[in-house]
Structure formats: structure tokens, C-alpha cells
């Protein structure tokens, strides 16, 4: 989306917010107006006020015709006068002016004042005046009534108008709010989609990277295998060549020597193939450990025997573990044998021929530990840290036979059984490889 479009969207959003708030403010203002206009003023009660004047005029007329006591006549006279006075005061006078009955009332009042009984006025004249006043008031009462209702109806109209305006404002605000909500939901949806796309892209990139790594590993593995296959094949080829060379008979000693060399080369080929197969199966998660209780002394001794027989090495070079209390671990004997054989071959390969390799089995609270100590040149902590990486070859050992997979495989197999393999520098030179396996906890 271009910046211009983005700006237009923001402006639209802001506009909608303004419209929404503006309409709500307008509605609030209209409601306040409505509330103010809904008060009832006493001055609006003109039907009552005018009616009271009428009644007092009648009362005085009645008192006069009854020839009541002077005091009583005076009281009724005063009250009627107060009523006419009230009608001449501010709000009442304006109302009557609007209704068109005002000017005549002033005349009636001054006429009444001129006939004050307290001043000894003529009672007959007063009676006549009051009688005429009663008739006049009656004639105007309906005007007052209709004017009052006119005013009330107009007021209700105004209230209704304000009410409708407030309603329209609120509805408008609701519409704007809906629009706002729609835009925000749409925006949220876009954001969510964008986020999902990004996550998917990241996952794809990760998959691709992993695939690349795997493919690179396979390539290096194939190179290594090919390279490792070459050497024993070359040895066999050379032996065969020697035996079949023309020029004299071949002595039985030479045959047996070349056979031994060839067999060792074949054993290495087989070993290499086994390792490759094992790695391949592990990568497919095709290997499941068959855990059982096994004494690590026995397993270590069997591995040492096999190694000596297979390679025809000097048995005295390896010092087997001293037979003490049984050290029973919960492990798979075949996998454990593979690990121990791996570690032992490393120890033999990477230390001088005349140096001893010690194998020792001990136990901790939770684990059985088998340590294999050589007296080679050892490894630096940095080398140890990289030793378990796939295809990593120890520095300076590139020419020695090996796949760069042995330690990786050993650690992987140990961890499959709930154990581990690690390397430490041996005090006094050389390297200690330790295999940890969980102890068998017998019931």
C-alpha cells in the first residue's frame, strides 16, 4: 500500500472519530437543553392565578350582597386587590399582554382602589363595580386558558424537536461508530493476516535452512565415506597386487601377512558401513533401545575382548576395570557396547602405541559411570566443545581413519538411554571420556 493511500485511510479514520465525538457532544448538549426546559415555572400556572382572581371577585361580591361585617368585607376587598396586583407584576403582566387581556385589568384595579371601604366608599357603587369585574374576568378566563395551553403546546413542541435532534445525533454517532468499528476490525484482520504470512515465511525459511543443512551433511558424509572407503580398498588392492605380481612363487608367510592386512582393511570397511548404517537409522528414528539391567563390568570386558580379537592388538595396552561390586545400569547392551567400542577405539587411536588406556567403572547416586582414560596429547577446552559436532575431526588427526561421526553417535546413543557422554582433560595429560548410564533401581 502506498503512503498516499495510507494517509487517506488515516484521514478517514480521524474524520470518523471526529464525527462520532461531535455527534455525541451535540446529543449531550441537546439533552442538557431538554433538561433545562423541562422545569415547571410557577408563573406558567396562569390558569390557576387568573382563576383565583375570579374567585376572589366572586367572594367579595358574595360578601357585599350578604351585607357581612365591615371587617370581613375589608378582608375580601384586600385579597381581591392583592390578586389584581399580582396580575400586574412582571411575569404575569407579560403573559396577559401576550394573551391580549392586560390593559383593561389596570383600569379595573384603579377603579377598585377608588372604592376602598376603609375610606368609606359607597357600598352600592363597589357592589356594581365588583359585579362588572366578575363578568369581565369570566370573559377573559377562556383567553387566558387558551393562551396558556398554546404556550404549553409550543413548549412541548420545542422539547419534542430537541428530543428528535438528540435522537438523530445519537443514531448518527452510532453509524459513525459502526463505520469506525468496521475499519478497525478490517485493519486488525489485515494485521493478523500479515503476521501469519510473516510467521509462515519464517517457518519456510527455517525449513529450507534445515533442509540445506541436511543436504550439506549428506554431501559431506558421502565424501567422507568415499574417502574412508578408498584407504582400505587401496590397502587390499595393494596386497592383491603384491600376491599376483609376476616373478617367482609367493611364500606362505607373505600370503598370510597380506591376508591379515586385507582382513583388517575389510574389518574397517565393515565397521565404517555399520556406523553409516547406524547413523542412517538414527536419522530416521529407526532405533529403539531395549532397556534392561546389565552389569557395566561385563559389558566393558566383552567390548575389550572383541576389540582385541578383531584388531589383533596388544591386549596388555588396555587395563580392564577391576572387578568389584556389580555396577548394574539400565541400558541396551548392544547400544552400550557400540558406545564403549567407539570411545575405546578413539583412546587407542589417538594415543601413542606404548601408552596404557585405563577403563574404570564406578557409580554415583543416580548413575553408573564408565571412564576411559588415555595418555595421548589430550584436547583443549575449545576442541572438547566442538568434539561432538557432526563430521568434526580432531585437529591434526585428519589423516587418521575416522568418519567424524563416532562421538556424535556415542553421545546420541547414550542420551537415548537416559545417559550421556562427555570428555574432560585427564590430570597428568591425556583425555578422559566418560559414559553415564542411569542406575538400575531394583525393587
Amino acid at each position, binding site marked *: 500500500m502506498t503512503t498516499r493511500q495510507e494517509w487517506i485511510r488515516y484521514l478517514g479514520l480521524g474524520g470518523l472519530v471526529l464525527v462520532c465525538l461531535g455527534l455525541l457532544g451535540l446529543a449531550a448538549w441537546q439533552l442538557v437543553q431538554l433538561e433545562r426546559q423541562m*422545569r415547571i415555572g410557577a408563573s406558567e400556572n396562569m390558569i390557576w392565578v387568573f382563576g383565583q382572581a375570579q374567585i376572589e371577585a366572586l367572594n367579595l361580591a358574595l360578601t357585599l350582597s350578604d351585607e357581612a361585617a365591615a371587617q370581613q368585607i375589608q*378582608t375580601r376587598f*384586600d385579597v381581591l386587590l*392583592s390578586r389584581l*396586583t*399580582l396580575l400586574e*407584576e*412582571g*411575569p404575569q403582566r407579560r403573559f396577559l399582554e401576550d394573551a391580549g387581556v392586560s390593559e383593561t385589568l389596570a383600569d379595573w384595579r384603579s377603579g377598585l382602589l377608588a372604592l376602598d371601604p376603609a375610606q368609606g366608599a359607597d357600598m352600592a357603587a363597589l357592589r356594581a363595580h365588583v359585579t362588572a369585574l366578575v363578568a369581565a374576568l369570566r370573559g377573559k378566563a377562556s383567553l387566558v386558558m387558551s393562551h396558556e395551553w398554546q404556550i404549553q403546546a409550543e413548549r412541548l413542541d420545542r422539547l419534542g424537536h430537541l428530543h428528535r435532534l438528540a435522537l438523530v445525533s445519537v443514531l448518527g454517532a452510532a453509524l459513525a461508530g459502526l463505520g469506525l468499528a468496521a475499519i478497525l476490525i478490517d485493519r486488525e484482520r489485515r494485521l493478523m493476516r500479515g503476521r501469519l504470512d510473516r510467521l509462515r515465511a519464517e517457518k519456510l525459511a527455517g525449513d529450507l535452512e534445515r533442509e540445506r543443512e541436511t543436504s550439506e551433511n549428506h554431501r559431506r558424509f558421502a565424501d567422507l565415506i568415499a574417502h574412508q572407503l578408498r584407504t582400505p580398498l587401496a590397502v587390499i588392492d595393494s596386497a592383491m597386487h603384491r600376491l599376483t605380481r609376476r616373478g617367482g612363487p609367493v611364500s606362505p608367510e607373505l600370503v598370510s601377512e597380506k591376508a591379515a592386512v586385507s582382513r583388517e582393511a575389510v574389518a574397517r570397511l565393515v565397521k565404517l558401513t555399520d556406523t553409516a548404517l547406524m547413523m542412517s537409522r538414527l536419522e530416521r528414528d529407526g532405533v529403539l533401545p531395549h532397556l534392561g539391567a546389565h552389569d557395566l563390568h561385563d559389558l566393558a570386558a566383552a567390548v575389550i575382548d572383541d576389540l582385541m580379537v578383531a584388531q589383533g592388538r596388544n591386549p596388555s595396552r588396555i587395563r580392564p576395570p577391576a572387578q568389584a561390586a556389580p555396577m548394574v545400569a539400565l541400558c541396551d547392551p548392544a547400544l552400550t557396547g557400540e558406545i564403549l567400542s567407539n570411545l575405546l577405539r578413539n583412546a587407542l587411536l589417538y594415543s601413542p602405541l606404548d601408552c596404557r588406556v585405563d577403563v574404570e567403572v564406578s557409580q554415583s547416586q543416580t548413575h553408573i559411570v564408565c571412564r576411559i582414560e588415555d595418555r595421548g596429547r589430550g584436547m583443549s577446552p575449545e576442541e572438547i566443545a566442538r568434539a561432538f559436532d557432526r563430521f568434526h575431526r580432531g585437529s591434526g588427526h585428519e589423516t587418521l581413519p575416522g568418519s567424524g561421526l563416532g562421538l556424535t553417535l556415542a553421545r546420541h546413543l547414550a542420551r537415548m538411554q537416559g545417559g550421556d557422554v562427555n570428555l574432560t582433560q585427564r590430570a597428568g595429560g591425556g583425555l578422559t571420556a566418560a559414559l553415564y548410564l542411569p542406575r538400575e533401581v531394583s525393587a
Partner: protein
Amino acid sequence: MNLRHRIARTALIAALLLSSVPAAAENVLLTLTGAVTDGRVELTRADFDAMDWHEFATSTSVTDHQPEFRGVLMRDILAHAGAEGSQVRAAALNDYVVDIPIEDFYQFDVLAALYMDGVPLTPRDKGPVWIVYPRDDHGVLADIRYDMRWVWQLVALHVQ
């Protein structure tokens, strides 16, 4: 208007008319009946003069400007008469009758005004006594329910 109301009103007016017969009655401005000392208390101008006078200006619902009212506080009158009750039924010369909660007189400085703008109130205007609320000091008082309690030409109070 219910029956009780009507009887009370008739009784009040009868009391008023009876009390206005003696010559001394001219001086009586306000008569209190009901739950007051000895059931009846008559206030003359001298009684009013003996009390504390107050004054304030306020707008009213029937005048344009804000007249200055002077008189005594309604609660002082009730205290003077030893009134014990929750409301008074106020009656006027013009037969106007309205019930006022006594609480009003303690909540607001309600005046029994005898003067407006320095001129004594007379029965020909809104006298002798006009109940005036301090309408401009309290927003709630600008309401028809309080405007109804502004009794002018007040002559009698029945304490209940």
C-alpha cells in the same frame, strides 16, 4: 383535596375568623395551632420585634427583579411557639392551604418576611407575612415543588 385536608382548612379559617372578632385581634399577625405550647400561640408585631430579624435578596417566581426581604426565620417562630411536629399546614387569607415539612426551615434559612424592599407587606399585596425561601442560594429551590410553599398573606400555621 381529601376530607381531612378540607376539615383542617375549615377549622383553620374558623379559628382565624373567630380570633379576628375581638378588638385586640388587630395586632395578631400569625396564629399557631396544633402541637404548640397550650395548643395555640398568637404572635403580634411586638412578638416579632422581640425575635432576631434577618434579611436577604432573592428572585421569586412572580416578580422580575430580586426584592430585598426582611423578617424573622420560620424556625425561630416555631421555636418561640414550642412547636413539636414534622410539618405545618400553612393557611393564607385567600384560603390557600399548603403542607410544608418543618425540615425545610432547618435545611434552609426560610424567612417569614414582613417587609419587601423596605416596604411593609399588607393584605392588599402579599402581607401580613410571606414565607420566602432563599431561592438563589440553593439550586433545588428553583422548582415548582418549593414555589408552592411560598405562602403569601400567611395568617395561620397548624403544626402536625
